[in-house]
């Protein structure tokens, strides 16, 4: 390759990718530095507080990984919040009667099953995922309420709560392990496998994917199933952390997850995305919650500031891409 060629390549790469690719990292850094400075005496920078942020965002991060796949394929999954509750309750109820292993199978199985239902309706009945998952969101919110008659179910199995919530391995809390492992596998599958490439191609140009021999329906089924399974895992993490399950779990997470994924550089219309970006986006959301509370703002002010910051982040991260 000639040197002139190389330099234009570097130039174009720099101008093209700098802002849109790294805006989430820069935003994250800016918010971090802002809080680090403003809250230098308020415990923000303590190891305890920073690790809390990662622990608290673990379920959102896990769900965000699933949503990156779904959105990259040009679909959406609005049902993840309801899946969390159903999975957590299914796990909690099953653990009480049949033990931990059965509980894990029940929780993950519930998530995967709901994902399969979503996926089959989208891929083979050819309904829009927005409407399908909007409907299943309501449907399974109802299911989770009726499962235990609105009661919360305690999870007393200490192996389970340790494994999924409060335990640690080699001095590292289990929720951090889950986050790291899920991100590593998610990133590898998304970036380095044919499946990941086919997901991106499907979201980018479904017709092109189809004439290139990619089974577009199978991809759509797969991404929604992955999303359901990961939401199920998030449900297990919540149940482990709270040592109980309730129908309200995950209910408020949907918007946080979508914001984290979009701020993290995944296009709403598919074809482009980032697992690591979603992690950073998710941590950014957690850090915002944490920092704004520590700043001593009233609840209403916290919501306003958080909304404005997310709006700014989304606007900047979408600016280049939306042309």
């Amino acid at each position, binding site marked *: 390759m000639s040197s002139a060629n190389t330099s234009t390549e570097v130039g174009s790469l720099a101008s093209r990718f700098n802002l849109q690719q790294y805006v989430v990292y820069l935003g994250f850094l800016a918010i971090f530095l802002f809080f680090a400075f403003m809250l230098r005496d308020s415990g923000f920078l303590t190891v305890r507080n920073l690790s809390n942020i990662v622990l608290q965002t673990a379920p959102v991060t896990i769900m965000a990984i699933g949503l990156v796949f779904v959105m990259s394929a040009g679909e959406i999954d609005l049902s993840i919040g309801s899946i969390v509750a159903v999975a957590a309750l299914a796990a909690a109820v099953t653990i009480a009667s049949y033990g931990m292993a059965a509980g894990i199978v029940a929780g993950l199985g519930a998530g995967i099953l709901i994902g399969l239902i979503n996926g089959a309706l989208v891929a083979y009945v050819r309904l829009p995922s927005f409407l399908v998952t909007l409907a299943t969101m309501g449907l399974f919110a109802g299911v989770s309420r009726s499962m235990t008659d609105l009661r919360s179910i305690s999870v007393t199995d200490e192996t389970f709560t340790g494994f999924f919530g409060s335990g640690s391995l080699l001095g590292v809390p289990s929720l951090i392990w889950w986050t790291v492992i899920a991100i590593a596998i998610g990133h590898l599958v998304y970036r380095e496998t044919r499946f990941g490439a086919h997901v991106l191609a499907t979201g980018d140009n479904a017709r092109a994917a189809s004439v290139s021999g990619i089974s577009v329906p199978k991809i759509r089924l797969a991404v929604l199933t992955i999303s359901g399974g990961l939401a199920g895992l998030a449900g297990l993490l919540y149940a482990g952390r709270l040592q109980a399950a309730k129908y309200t779990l995950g209910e408020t997470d949907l918007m946080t997850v979508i914001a984290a994924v979009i701020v993290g550089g995944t296009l709403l219309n598919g074809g482009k995305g980032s697992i690591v970006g979603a992690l950073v986006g998710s941590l950014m959301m957690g850090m915002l919650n944490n920092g704004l*509370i*520590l700043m001593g703002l009233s609840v209403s002010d916290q919501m306003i500031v958080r909304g404005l910051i997310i709006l700014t982040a989304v606007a900047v991260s979408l600016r280049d891409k939306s042309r």
Partner: protein
Amino acid sequence: MRRALSIMTILASLLAAHAFAAEGVTTGPNGEKPVPAASLTLTAAQEQQIKDGKFTAALVWHEMSEYTNAVNAGARDEFKRLGIKVVAQTDAGFDAARQKADVETVLAKKPSIILSLPVDPATAAAVYDPARQAGVKLGFVDNCPAGYKQGSDYVTIVSDDLFQMGNKAGIAMAEALGKKGKVGYIFHDADFYVTNQRDGAFKKTIEQDYPEMKIADEAGMADPARSEDIAQAMITQHPDLDGIYVTWAEPALSVLAALRAAGNKHTKIVTLDLNEPAALDMVKGGRVAALVADEAYSIGVTLARASAGSLVGLKAEPFYAVDSIAVTKETVKEGWKKSLNKDVPATIADAMK
């Protein structure tokens, strides 16, 4: 003070009129006997000791509503009086996982006190354990985490006098209907001891104290969003109802809407909690006859005071109950001030002119 006295006089007269009123007491979540909130006081020496301690507090609420706002204001005012700085305030949006995150977050500021209303008592131990282990004084509204011991794990619980609220709602209904007639009863159909006790007290009061009144129809409401359908069905089946009791104010608005839609002008509504649209209907001589409100502001004051006192060795009672008031067209101004520590909204003040 004069306002308080006048309300006491009204209450006393109401109570006196019913010498054989329904028996019943509010109990705490673990069967605790209630102690009047007003009985909790700090000595000047204790107050000085608290002020010298340079303590801090965090407020970890379950959600934000007018009610929580009033509790929050009471707590903040009392903390301010005692020289305690409020370092953080959170809203969990009824999500237990979020409330756990909130507790962990505020701990970074090392508060001496956390005041909170647990979203879900069954899961609450996992939520508050980090704070308990850090030696933070925990004060709760309404409920406490399952398995926690008062005195060692938390300071106290402050709540409404739930029985009194339901009882006053029953009395207010009887007054509005001239002590006779048919009543519809819309209760909260969920295992939630706050609403269960209030609803039960209303029913008991009507059934025991007013022989000429009858609960003609009952309907359980699990989902407030469906309250209008429930009210519609009730009005259709019993167009001759003289009054309807609704478990709290938001669904009562739906009942009001259903009555309006049906062109029904004779059925009266009694419900719990202050709420502007409902109060407006009341002062305009509409269908709402009375709103029974707890002294939410006092809950915050009492809880803050008990928790602050515990830092200097005060032993709080396990369960304090604040009074409630039946607010009618005539007492809406005083009632608003006493319950929410706010002036009555301008719309209502205008409507009364």
